[in-house]
């Protein structure tokens, strides 16, 4: 894995009136890694991600994504990234193929390119039969996978996933992560937020956000070892959930 940063953030903050949602966070994400942004609901993960995607203006601090500044060059950033929101915003009254063609076209792919890519992606998931189904008729698990496909249809360097596995069964979750890892192997950097602590094991490095600040930034293994030592527990006992509980006990908000 190369160690060139694809995201670089310094003191980034977002304030809503008197409420600080994101409080001076600093970190780097390297090309090709799966970077997990963990934290409780309300910790500030989505807000932070939205600033990196160019959906939200930061109120302090600096950041660059794929080499462009998040405040002044967000439109350029958008050309090189993919995004999957919490609500998998797909057009329910369009078919699978139509949704994919739409976004492929938006990112400037040629007709032939799109067709080939659609076949490739749908084939990978054995979904080709449902190409002409209306998205509204699909079950949740499939919508989720479709949203991921659309986020990566244009082979972006970096893809942002906001709580992509919300509300689906454990098997589907596992399948989804297989998908993510396959994409990462192809060289795409993955930035994913989640509140499922067990998913941290799939990531190369993670951070823990609590109350808008970063309380930890390391590989999952290192974190577990660190806290196992600190709390005089075994490595096996110290799951990511345990790590989180320990960190979150100091939180003012959260569950």
């Amino acid at each position, binding site marked *: 894995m190369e160690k060139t940063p694809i995201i670089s953030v310094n003191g980034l903050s977002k304030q809503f009136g008197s409420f600080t949602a994101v409080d001076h966070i600093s970190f780097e994400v390297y090309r090709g890694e799966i970077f997990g942004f963990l934290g409780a609901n309300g910790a500030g993960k989505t807000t932070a991600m939205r600033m990196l995607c*160019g*959906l*939200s203006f930061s109120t302090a601090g600096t950041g660059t994504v794929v080499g462009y500044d998040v405040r002044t060059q*967000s439109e350029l950033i958008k050309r090189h990234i993919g*995004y999957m*929101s919490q609500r998998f915003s797909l057009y329910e009254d369009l078919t699978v193929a139509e949704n994919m063609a*739409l976004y492929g076209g*938006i*990112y*400037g792919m040629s007709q032939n390119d799109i067709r080939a890519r659609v076949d490739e992606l749908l084939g990978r998931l054995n979904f080709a039969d449902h190409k002409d189904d209306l998205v509204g008729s699909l079950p949740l698990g499939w919508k989720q996978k479709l949203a991921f496909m659309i986020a990566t249809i244009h082979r972006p360097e970096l893809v942002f996933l906001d709580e992509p596995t919300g509300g689906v069964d454990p098997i589907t979750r596992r399948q989804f992560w297989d998908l993510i890892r396959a994409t990462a192997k192809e060289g795409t950097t993955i930035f994913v937020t989640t509140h499922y602590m067990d998913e941290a094991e799939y990531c190369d490095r993670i951070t823990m956000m609590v109350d808008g600040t970063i309380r930890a930034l390391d590989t999952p293994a290192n974190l577990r070892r660190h806290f196992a030592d600190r709390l005089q527990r075994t490595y096996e006992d110290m799951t990511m959930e345990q790590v989180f509980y320990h960190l979150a006990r100091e939180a003012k908000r959260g569950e």
Partner: protein
Amino acid sequence: MKSVLPILMRKEITQFRRNKVLPRLVMMMPIMLVLIMPLVTQMDIKNISVVVLGEDRSLLSTRIESHLANSDYFRMPESAYDYNHAVELMDQGRVDLIVSIPAHFERDMRNGHGKPISLTANAVNATKGGQGIQYATQTIISAVTEIAAESGLSAEGGLSVEGGLITVQNRYNPTGNYRHFMLPALMIIVLLLVCTFLPLLNIMTEKEHGTIEQINVTPVSRWEFILAKLIPYWILALVMIGFAMLLAWAVYGLVPAGNPLNIFIGAFLFSLCMSGFSVTIANISNTMQQAIFVLFFFVIQFMLLSGLFTPISSMPTLAQWLTYAFPPRYVINIFRSVYLKGTLFTELWFDYTMLFILAAVFYTLATFTYKKQN
């Protein structure tokens, strides 16, 4: 990057076609408005119930009474034996107008000491009351004129009414057909509703479903996105106007006196204005309910203050100044003038120019209020 516009527009059109309610509604609306509204919007009052009192059995009074009875506007289902009885009938709602001819009316008229005829109207409904009085006065005058002509009396005779020398000619609407007057206005109502509510609902639905966020994270530019949303509606507006015009011809025989192209140009510019306006509202609203109400508020102002139902010249000066910013005002003038008077394009240059300016203003507003990043 080549333009994304065609792709976005294809999506909009596909979504419109798949929608179960909208296309049907869009077809129904012109039909309903053009067919039903003219039946309803009769400002002329008919069937005014009138009672004539008076002991003067002269030729003049009976002539007045028969003119009233034969008039389209009046009917005489009741009779009263005196004024108080007539008023009672009025309070019961059975009589709308009381005409009292004083005793010795004709005799006094010939002597030059005519006593006034008194008209009493039930003015709870002010329009009805006022018009009743007006019609009655006209009818009475025509009756008197007739008698004067028959008696061969001249101006010295005391029974003269020079009304015979004054004629009134209605140009451009010789039948005085109120429908012909209202139809162009109704077409505009159709346009107004389609070009404001549909784009607004479209955008608010995307906002509430979250699909707009997905678009915001792509490199699609603001103006492309908005244009893609609006263009289908501009085309729709033109189609609907064409359809409405066909209907008007088929059902009422109403054909534009002037160049139909002028009407289409007016409709097009108008749809630009109104869709830009409604997108601006959509951009600054958070929920569908809120957006709908704000839009509705403005649409009502536009409908009532632009000369659709009541003339702008009757409004207080301050309000008249306000209407210069209202697109409907110009398009109503354009439609009516071209349809009924055959006015030329160059004669309407002011209206067209203002529409163009307003369209540019609203479109700019629409683009600027759309924030991909906040």
